[in-house]
């Protein structure tokens, strides 16, 4: 095991001194500031140095303002490394015992000392009167819906994307025939339309809060529903259900997105909680996107009964990517090596972006996802 020692000051620019605390134990080691590596490698390293390989951890660090902030992805990991001056103080908690409310602005300045912080972290229920609402970390969030194309649609319309993520939760809404009034050169005209007639309690559609009863459905995945029968529209929606994009004219026009903001809004939901977080991602929807998007819906091909030598390359690839999580090899000199297995350490790889996820899967498919039976 490595013996942690103070790094000479001459190397402070290139190295980051890390002091990691888990429970009552401290570990010290250093990282190369210029080559911090990826978060999952760092995570593996932490588990390794604390000798807690199978414990799910919540990693926090004290930033320059004294706030306790989480490290859970590459971005905030790199931020933490780059801002460490030169000491990076880490606080590790078991995920199941985590105190989420500890994070945030002023979380550490209120209780100036790390000791006080540690007190909070170590005795989570010491001063607690009632447990606060647990809101999971952003990486556990998964977009269930989004409003897209705000910038190109009329303000009266709303384009909603529902993400099913292959889960079993029902989409949960009903549509019906009806008639709506359109402004035409001849004046007002009554035309047949398709409307949302019911939302299933607990369904995906209801949980987004973006669709409501009596909203008029104008388009399904870029195809206008005008002139189509109720059954046709039903079939279109079901056929697109894995990535449903519907353009509606909300019955309630008061909650419309203000256009000049030029942003899209994501609504995130985690099991048992709903939260709204503004996002900086602008997504413009184009019909051809549908085509590319649905690559995430690759059909499952199972090779069976065949002798594996027939497809040696794909077989090897498959074993690698499906092998059980293995620890990254710890390198004392901080050059963390890229390893295939690292990817699999976080078993619930958060889908930060659907496109990314799709790409990932697609790559796998093309390598030949082979499940040996």
């Amino acid at each position, binding site marked *: 095991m490595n013996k942690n020692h103070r790094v000479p000051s001459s190397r402070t620019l290139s190295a980051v001194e890390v002091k990691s605390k888990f429970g009552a134990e401290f570990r010290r080691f250093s990282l190369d500031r210029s080559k911090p590596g990826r978060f999952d490698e760092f995570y593996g390293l932490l588990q390794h140095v604390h000798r807690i390989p199978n414990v799910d951890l919540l990693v926090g660090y004290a930033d320059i303002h004294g706030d306790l902030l989480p490290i859970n992805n590459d971005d905030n990991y790199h931020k933490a490394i780059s801002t460490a001056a030169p000491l990076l103080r880490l606080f590790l908690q078991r995920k199941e015992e985590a105190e989420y409310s500890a994070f945030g602005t002023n979380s550490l300045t209120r209780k100036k000392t790390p000791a006080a912080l540690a007190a909070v972290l170590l005795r989570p229920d010491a001063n607690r009167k009632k447990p606060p609402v647990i809101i999971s970390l952003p990486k556990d969030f998964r977009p269930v819906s989004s409003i897209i194309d705000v910038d190109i649609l009329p303000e009266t319309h709303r384009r909603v994307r529902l993400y099913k993520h292959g889960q079993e939760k029902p989409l949960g809404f009903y549509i019906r025939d009806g008639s709506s009034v359109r402004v035409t050169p001849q004046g007002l005209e009554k035309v047949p339309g398709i409307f949302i*007639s019911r939302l299933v309690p607990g369904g995906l559609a209801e949980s987004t809060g973006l669709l409501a009863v009596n909203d008029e459905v104008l388009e399904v995945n870029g195809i206008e529903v005008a002139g189509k029968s109720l059954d046709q529209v039903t079939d279109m929606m079901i056929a697109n259900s894995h990535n449903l994009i519907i353009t509606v004219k909300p019955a309630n026009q008061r909650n419309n997105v203000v256009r000049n903001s030029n942003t899209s809004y994501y609504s995130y939901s985690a099991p048992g909680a709903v939260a709204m977080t503004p996002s900086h991602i602008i997504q413009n929807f184009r019909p051809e996107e549908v085509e590319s998007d649905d690559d995430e819906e690759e059909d499952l091909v199972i090779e069976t009964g065949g002798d594996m030598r027939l497809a040696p390359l794909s077989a090897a690839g498959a074993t690698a990517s499906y092998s059980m999580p293995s620890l990254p090899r710890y390198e004392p000199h901080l050059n963390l090596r890229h390893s295939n297995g690292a990817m699999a350490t976080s078993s619930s790889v958060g889908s930060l972006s659907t496109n990314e996820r799709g790409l990932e899967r697609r790559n796998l498919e093309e390598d030949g996802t082979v499940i040996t039976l």
Partner: protein
Amino acid sequence: MKFRFRRQGNDPQREKIKQDLFAFNKTVEHGFPNQPSALAYDPKLQLMAIGTKSGAIKVYGSPGVEFTGLHKDTATVTQMHFLHGQGRILSLLDDNTLHLWEIGQREQCSSLEEVCSFTIPCRTAVCASYFSPYSATRVTVLLPKLNCDLLAVGTEGGGVHFLELPSLTLLDKSLFQDEIMQRWEALFVFSLGPVESLQEHPQHPDKILIGYSRGLVVLWDLQTRHVDNLFLGKQQLESLVWERSGNSFVSSHSDGGYMVWSVSSSTPCTNEPVSSTITYGPFPCKAVNKILWRTAESGAPLVLFSGGMPRASYGDRHCLTILQDSQHVTLDFTSRVIDFFTVHCTDAHKFDDPSALVVLLEEELVVIDLQTAGWPTIPAPYLAPLHSSAITCSYHISNVPTKLWERVVSAGQQQGSLQTHTNWPICGGKNLAPDPKQQELMLTGHEDGTVRFWDASGVSLRPLYKLSTANIFQTDCDHNDSLTQAGEEEWPPFRKVGCFDPYSDDPRLGIQKICLCKYSGKLVVAGTAGQVIVLYLSDEKSDHMIDVATVDLLQDREGFTWKGHDRLPPKSGSVVFAPGFQPVVLVQCMPPAAVTAVTLHAEWNLIAFGTSHGFGLFDYHRRSPVLARCTLHPNDSLAMEGPLSRVKSLKKSLRQSFRRIRKSRVSGKKRVQEANAHLAEQDAEVTPVQRRIEPRSADDSLSGVVRCLCFADTFLRDGTHHGPTMWAGTNSGSVYAYALDVPSQEKFSEQSVEALLGKEIQLMHRAPVVSIAVLDGRGNPLPEPYEVSRDLAKAPDMQGSHSVLIASEEQFKVFMLPKVSAKTKFKLTAHEGCRVRKVALVNFSSVASEDYSENGLVCLTNLGDIHVFSIPALRPQVRYDCIRKEDISGIASCVFTKTGQGFYLISPSEYERFSLSARVITEPLCQVRHSERGSGLDGTKITGSSVKNSR
């Protein structure tokens, strides 16, 4: 989608090619018109016309000569008459309108068009007798005079009106009952009743016989407006017919009798007929609806009448009696007699000498040869009763080799024992259509376990051969022999005629799927009780045992119990088979659910079959099962309960109703008040139809149903070695691909076939797999078995990489083989909202050049429209509306041919034939030469020379 936008309709060159390849036409209707209601015959042109309840008119002459017309209003055609020799037809509809149709000349061919129509105006003068219970202007009978210048119209009110032909203008010389009653004061009747019959005197064109419903018959002279003779019948009149000489006529009556009256100028008023007969008396009989009296050179006249059966014992039979001297036959039909006529001499001959009797029944057309002793039936070359037993499936084979064709035809000829081969008596018109380039077979499977073979090469669908599969099973309905034996002593002398038999002995016999190898003459027929029968074509009679094998498709699945029907018990011992297709092997699936897919590879001696539980592979040469695979999903309970069980739904509905009761108890009165208030608020608005948006999940019921099976010689295991494969697709979007190890021809008997599961594909959208086809390196469909080994088709490209086209109900996808990576796709449902019902790979040849052709994927959707896609690029080419989307049975029955035609049922008895190809079109092209006629409509008089009826 990006590509589609770019490509759509922009390339003029491609558009031109498309025009040369694709064109949609509904070409001809095959089979028997649904619900016929009227019949007419023109002895001069030798054309027959049939009217239907839906307002269609169909004219038939010699085989291939066909015309179809449709009235604008969907009203029953109640009567039709040809204007003798003019190629014009008068039709009377249920809505009391008269229509005149003309067979016109368009370019080289003839066609049928409506030229004018007429409604009798309800003038007060016409409605003279308003005490009458009848509508005065309701037309009951029509009589176009033989010289075609005058039409007499009899009405319910008893008046007879006259119209000028062909302009249909009312002439001011109507004859009312008052006129007759005034002149003959001997008549003390209040009303004569409706005009029941109008008949022109065969010798004097100016005299017509008018028969009134209450029994009075009047011979009326049009020229002098004078009653020549008066016949006081006492019985309710049904019909009248002249004897050829005009010296006597026959009347038929509602009491089941007929009377012969003589016409002489010495007795202008008589109430005594020459003779009066009630054939089936003395007990009360039903009315004789129509009678014909035909003189014959050979002796006694022929009397033909419909009805008149003893009310109590045979009142429910549909009969037609033929009487001549001592000969007496009562034709016993299975459906109602609509009308009948005889084909006889009409020229200046002394006798009628009828040659044939044509009877239009509700469900078929029967023609009796009256010149051959025993009056046998003549097989009709068209109007085939497709639905003699309900059609359960259809199968089309293009380009049938002559060898197979001849063997099937000869097998069929040996079947028809009670049929003569005299010429078809209705032979007007000339068929101009070129002889079909290739022979086409249409096979229909029926509810009673028969498979019928039809000649579908041309315009008229002709029966060739009938195969029955019922005789290899023990059913409790083998009483056919005893029935015919009892017929000997019976009186009336019934004779069963016609083949319409809607009653199936056992619903399990029903045919579900058919597959025929046209090169080896091997046929696979699969039915409702899981029976799969392999038949060999043989020219010799045979007496052999059938090998029976049972295949358990459930495998080792536990906890499932089949609650549906039992399997059909096969007959033990040997069975005698007539020349034709003879059963050799019977495979029975367990559980005995209906077979949902079947396919045959005669070169490999393999059949594959699937039910709602799984699929099996069977080597019929060695009589050994090769493979059985269960496709059931563990949650699929419905599949186990069989087709008739309602256990689940009952339980469900009970639960639901209990819930409803509980709910209503909770908030009693308040709810009612609320509901009432709500109702008052929007009373006009009905509850809208709602549709749930839920993606398909794996545990949908009947997910295990095998939808399609296919054999292919392709690359499944690796890209260098191809070999036999078998593919199966299910209702839940699963595809199973097996690599087969088929021994070479010589070793078939020793070595067994092995099947190894190569790939399993789960379509993520889980829609039912409708069809699977393998494409070769050039993107062409693989040829059929034997085609390559016998040099009948170009060998497939085995160099380039193959691909498999999987069509589900929602999308089409082409996967590269052997890796099964998606190459192209088209998501039909996601874009159009319609679902795929039928698909076929079709070769379209161009009209512009002989040797240019393209392969296309043809798809019929649940909305009844047809899309054509290019393969393997899957780009949409054309779209046509074909079937009404409400016509579910039409959509379900659609079959495509390999050359771009198709068939679907427009009624239980009729196929509509359509063509998607601009080149391959089968439509009637015919010509009818009629005597000259005035244009009529502009008032031109018809010149005397044009009417040569007395020639």
